[in-house]
């Protein structure tokens, strides 16, 4: 519902739906941070090992962890830290993509809780291709492209399973996604257990695969590694942003995107209007799976991370964290870039907390979970904003 200004005839800034989403996201973030701060204060007051100064430092790091430069003569020092920002961008890359994965499915009315499984399948495919195609006979660049596409394809196939079950048999995608997640976790562990990609040469690396850089396959830095010297950043973040823009164009400027959204709004109405709802549901999950797969590919192909393959009892957190990223962004692909970076900033703040104070990194996970919990009733926040506006306009009318 648009509210137009009486005098200018333009849409009021606070009345736009996008603005409301941003406001409710900001409120969620604010309350989440507040909960984190309260826990830090509460724990600090109740434990002997943490002084008032320690509490203050904990709070400072939650909010400004990205700009932390360590300790300077006993006190925390803050400043422009290129290593932190570079690492933030590197960690944001998979988060943006899993966030997009959840967001695209959401637009089609599907809750893609299967991102962790799709991410794992993408991981297995891209690491396998990157390590087993010999770079002595095939140029490393081509191997990289093959591995990247392989990751996307594996994720897409894995996403297609719940999509097909939903489309043809109308089985709740949440249940099938959970099942496929754990099947993927076991399959991937099984695959690496039998493969020769396990790191057998370095002691202390039991359970890890080789880095893809062993075979010379590595995401190019595209100059970012020069700007943020000493950090893990590479060209992956640029690819992620490009993919986000493509998703935005696809969802809001093409017929296909319109059909997807129509299926999400009302599957039966869309069918009545002549849209092939089954095809669109499957395609939506395929795209979502492909995005999660690309998240895995970009993360592991960086060349300096090793995959802990014995993962049959745990699912990757980055898959689940796609959910808060998408929720915070209200499923807008462009906004996902920013919410992905925000999650990654929280991650960095968590690591600073762990190294610099008596607290640990899990406080940021509590903040993220609180944000997810709050976004479950973002509708309510929007209604409150609407009511406030109504009251204001009523008052204005009386004058």
């Amino acid at each position, binding site marked *: 519902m648009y509210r137009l200004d009486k005098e200018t005839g333009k849409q009021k800034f606070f009345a736009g739906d996008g603005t409301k989403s941003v406001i409710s996201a900001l409120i969620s973030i604010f309350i989440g941070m507040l909960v984190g701060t309260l*826990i830090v204060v509460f*724990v600090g007051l109740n*434990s002997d090992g943490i002084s008032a100064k320690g509490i203050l430092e904990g709070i400072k790091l939650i909010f400004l962890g990205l700009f932390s430069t360590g300790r300077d003569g006993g006190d925390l020092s803050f400043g422009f830290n290129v290593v932190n920002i570079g690492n933030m961008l590197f960690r944001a890359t998979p988060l943006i993509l899993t966030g997009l994965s959840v967001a695209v499915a959401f637009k089609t009315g599907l*809750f893609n*809780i299967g991102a962790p499984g799709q991410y794992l399948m993408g991981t297995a495919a891209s690491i396998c291709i990157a390590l087993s195609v010999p770079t002595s006979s095939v140029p490393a660049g081509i191997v990289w492209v093959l591995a990247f596409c392989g990751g996307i394809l594996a994720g897409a196939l894995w996403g297609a399973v719940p999509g097909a*079950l939903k489309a043809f*048999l*109308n*089985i*709740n995608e*949440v*249940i*099938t996604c*959970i*099942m*496929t*997640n*754990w*099947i993927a*976790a*076991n*399959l991937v*562990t*099984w695959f690496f*257990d039998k493969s020769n990609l396990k790191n057998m040469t370095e002691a202390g690396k039991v359970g890890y695969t080789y880095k893809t850089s062993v075979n010379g396959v590595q995401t190019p830095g595209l100059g970012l590694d020069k700007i943020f010297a000493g950090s893990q950043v590479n060209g992956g973040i640029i690819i992620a942003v490009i993919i986000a823009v493509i998703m935005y164009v696809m969802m809001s400027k093409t017929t296909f995107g319109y059909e997807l959204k129509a299926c999400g709004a009302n599957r039966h109405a869309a069918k009545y209007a002549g849209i092939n709802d089954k095809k669109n549901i499957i395609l939506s999950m395929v795209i979502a799976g492909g995005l999660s797969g690309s998240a895995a590919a970009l993360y592991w192909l960086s060349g300096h991370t090793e995959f802990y393959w014995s993962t*049959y*009892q*745990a*699912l990757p957190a980055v898959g*689940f964290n796609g*959910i*808060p990223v998408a*929720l915070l962004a209200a499923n807008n692909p462009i906004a996902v870039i920013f919410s992905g970076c925000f999650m990654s900033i929280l991650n960095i703040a968590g690591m600073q907390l762990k190294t610099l104070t*008596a*607290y*640990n990194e*899990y*406080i940021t*996970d*509590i903040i*993220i*979970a*609180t944000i*997810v*919990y709050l*976004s*479950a*009733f973002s*509708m*309510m926040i929007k209604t409150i904003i609407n009511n406030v506006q109504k009251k204001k306009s009523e008052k204005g009318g009386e004058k």
Partner: protein
Amino acid sequence: MVFLIQQTMIYAIPLMIVALAGIFAERSGIINLALEGIMIFGAFCGVLFVRIMQENNVFTQQQGQLLMVAAMAVAAALGALFSLLLAFSAINLKADQTIGGTALNMLAPAFVLFFINLLTHQTAMGMYVGDAASWFMIKPSTFGLPRDHDFGFLGNLLINKVYLSTYICLILFLVLSVILYKTKFGLRLRSCGENPQAADSLGINVYKMRYAGTTISGALSGLGGFVYALTTANCASTGEVAGFGFLALAVMIFGNWTPLSTALAAVLFGLFKCIAATYASIDINGDGVAMLAQIGVSPYVYRLLPYLITLVVLAFTSKNSRVPKAEGIPYDKGSR
């Protein structure tokens, strides 16, 4: 054989009780995706309670059974409290239940690991002294008998090297199943998951019933989480329960939302878990040959079979599955 049955029960009991938790929530109309999270939270609370009691010497090792029952009660109570978060968002605020459940699933491990890390500076928290077997397991010495006393086949099966929690959970399962099907309360609860509007028109308070369903669900999953930690993880909390909450969800679906089939499904899935964990050394007919290891099927097959079977069963029974009709839909008095 005795070993196989006992091991299977160790895995099946938490699955059974947590699947029943799922049934209670879903039959009242609330999708409880947070089973896993509440289990993690319940396990943490129970273990923390045991630790604190041991630290302050409230219970001696001879009173281990008493301590265990008290810890189970604490885990259940705090699990119920934790599940109120889900009930509040799903019932009062009419929020999306899957997102609310996911939030709890993310909150529980974060919260638990945060405190474990503060308390122990590690990623796991065990008992203060001793281990689960010496404190809580029923052994010949519990009855004042010598260590190698032989109870006979049935005795060995039922009272040697078992946990009292197994029987408490079995009794709870029976009692609650009867309540769900044979009492006024149970009928009302189930009606809220099928047709809340009709239930409301007959004077049933749908909100209250759904709160009851979710709270019972929270208590059972908290209890199940602690029992899991006690019997399979040596009474330690690590911020995860190895996907047992999700497996319980699969058990519930496999059991078609009814207690009896769910119990059977739990035993079946428990058997798979047990085989996957012990397949290399398991000796079914007692001829000294580890048969399953010789067949050469990878343990990962047994681990993923429960999930795969659930998928297949869902695919084949989707037409006549007994999903509670109103589950996942927030109850709004105004709509019809």
